[in-house]
């Protein structure tokens, strides 16, 4: 469980996150909102790249904000980025193994863990193939394999389906849905593809201009009037 209490981020005069209190309980949770709503900033706070001006984040009973950024990965925080960041110079195996060797997982199980993470995401390319030779879909899958290897506790997925065609998004959805049961990790999914969010997430929270405007079961949230207005805009009488 991840509990966010009164979280705020301030960049000079801009307040990308403004007093958000929210609980991500378990399973796969969605985090949606229009562009500029503060979703990636929230992930950056979780990762330690951005320091909040106030508020707390408690993850499985531990104060996440007190941990140094790179130690959060060792603790079990994983994330992917909007722009895919698999390491071009390394093979698929090494891309996944390097996360394992900086995690708290045992060295003895490295090979088996890495290969099972690669198998879990359904990557057809050989683990020995170089990442620079892979297509966009396979690179995205390598990123997911990196996010689930080595005893993850919280997995943050930032628009993992960006740029993928429908059929491949569907496969990715299947993979994301199985992360909590397979690895026991709480998964938070940010995406603009509502069918993916609906298919993967039991609960969803919605940010707009840095404020939480709705949260709850995904189907209810997507019908919420405020949410529809945030995405489509409202008519204003002049």
């Amino acid at each position, binding site marked *: 469980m991840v509990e966010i209490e009164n979280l705020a981020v301030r960049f000079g005069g801009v307040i990308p996150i403004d007093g958000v209190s929210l609980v991500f309980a378990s399973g796969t949770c969605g985090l949606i909102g229009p562009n500029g709503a503060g979703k990636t900033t929230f992930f950056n706070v979780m990762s330690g790249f951005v320091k909040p001006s106030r508020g707390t984040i408690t993850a499985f009973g531990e104060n996440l904000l007190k941990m140094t950024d790179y130690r959060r*990965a060792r603790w079990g925080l994983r994330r992917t980025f909007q722009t895919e960041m698999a390491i*071009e110079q390394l093979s698929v195996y090494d891309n996944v193994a390097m996360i394992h060797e900086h995690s708290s997982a045992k060295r003895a199980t490295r090979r088996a863990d890495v290969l099972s993470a690669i198998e879990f995401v359904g990557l057809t390319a050989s683990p020995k193939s170089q990442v620079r030779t892979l297509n966009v879909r396979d690179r995205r899958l390598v990123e997911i394999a990196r996010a689930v290897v080595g005893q993850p506790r919280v997995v943050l997925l930032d628009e993992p389906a960006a740029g993928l065609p429908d059929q491949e998004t569907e496969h990715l959805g299947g993979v994301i849905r199985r992360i909590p049961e397979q690895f026991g990790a709480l998964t938070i999914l940010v995406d603009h593809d509502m069918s993916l969010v609906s298919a993967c997430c039991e609960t969803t929270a919605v940010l707009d201009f840095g404020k939480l405007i709705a949260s709850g079961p995904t189907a209810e949230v997507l019908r919420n009037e405020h949410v529809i207005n945030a995405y489509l805009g409202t008519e204003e009488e002049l």
Partner: protein
Amino acid sequence: MGLVSAAVLLLVALFVLPAIAGSDWITTFTSVAIYSIVALGFSVLYGRVGMISLGQVAFLSIGVWAGTRLAYATSIPFPLLLVVVGAVVMVIGTLVGLTAIRLSGLYLALITLMFAGATTVVLSVWDFPNGGHGFTGHTSVPDLSGLENVRRPSVGVGDTAYYRYVVIVAALMFLLALAHIVSKPGRAWAAIRESEPAALAAGVNVTFYKLWAFALASFMAGVAGCLLAALNGVSRAINFQTQDSLTLAATALFGGVFSVWGALIGGIFYQLLPFLFEAQWGVNPNFLLVVFGAGLLQVLLLAPGGLADQFPKDMANLGRLLARKVPPTRQAAFGLGSNFALILGIVLIVTVSPLLGLAAIILAPILAAQALD
């Protein structure tokens, strides 16, 4: 394949070259091996971690200094001297790195170049290497001809034996770098090079691994410096100028920073070509700066992997073109033309006229630019 080539090359370097080459060639090959180690340090920093350090020759000169002084002051065995000097330069390199790694890109390049400049100033003010007695020995006589030579290892007193010794130490340094590249630090460096935030999110302690790379590169430069001190006997400050760091960076990039072979090619360019120009062909070696500049531009425009990566591809392209298996593409034609202009330029400088040669060399990057889409 790589291992077999490396083993063959090592055997040729150890047994064939000493049998066929004269003494001035052997001294040059010794320098090639030493400067390959320095270029290797540059490759680790830039090719693996993405940090441009323009101070590698400065670390080399500190290694020469520390090696000279420790050789005068102590009687420790030569292999131990190499390790101690490597460690001294590693500590200095790590301290410089501690400041430098807060910066990146152009700023890191500038601060390391300023460090190289400062080192040059200190060496000349101190009248390096200065004296032959103990660690702080001092002489006010500008003529250093009376100074005792820095000792060589007991198994490598003669020039050829010392050359073999240096080749073996260089091979060990290449193995040390490779051992890093294929293991945990190499993977962490690859992650940092791709993206620092992504590396942090992957659990990599970015500061620690950057410092590790700085420490490794400066250790290697220190070992190379100690080898150079013993090769020279008595070194002089005038031989270590700030711009040498730039030239070394250019030749390392020209050779290729993503493969360890590139460091060897860089060492050959940096030491063998000037020897060929000056001692063998009687041409001013300063013309080589233009060759390196044009070659560097060509690499930056067309072939970021340098010659180590591009030359085999170009030869394959040439083979396909000659066999008419594929129609010549614009890119392949201009790329090959650019290489041809560079080689032709060197041949013209040496045989016909330096001016004509320079004109051909300047054509190389222009043709390379045309090969871009």
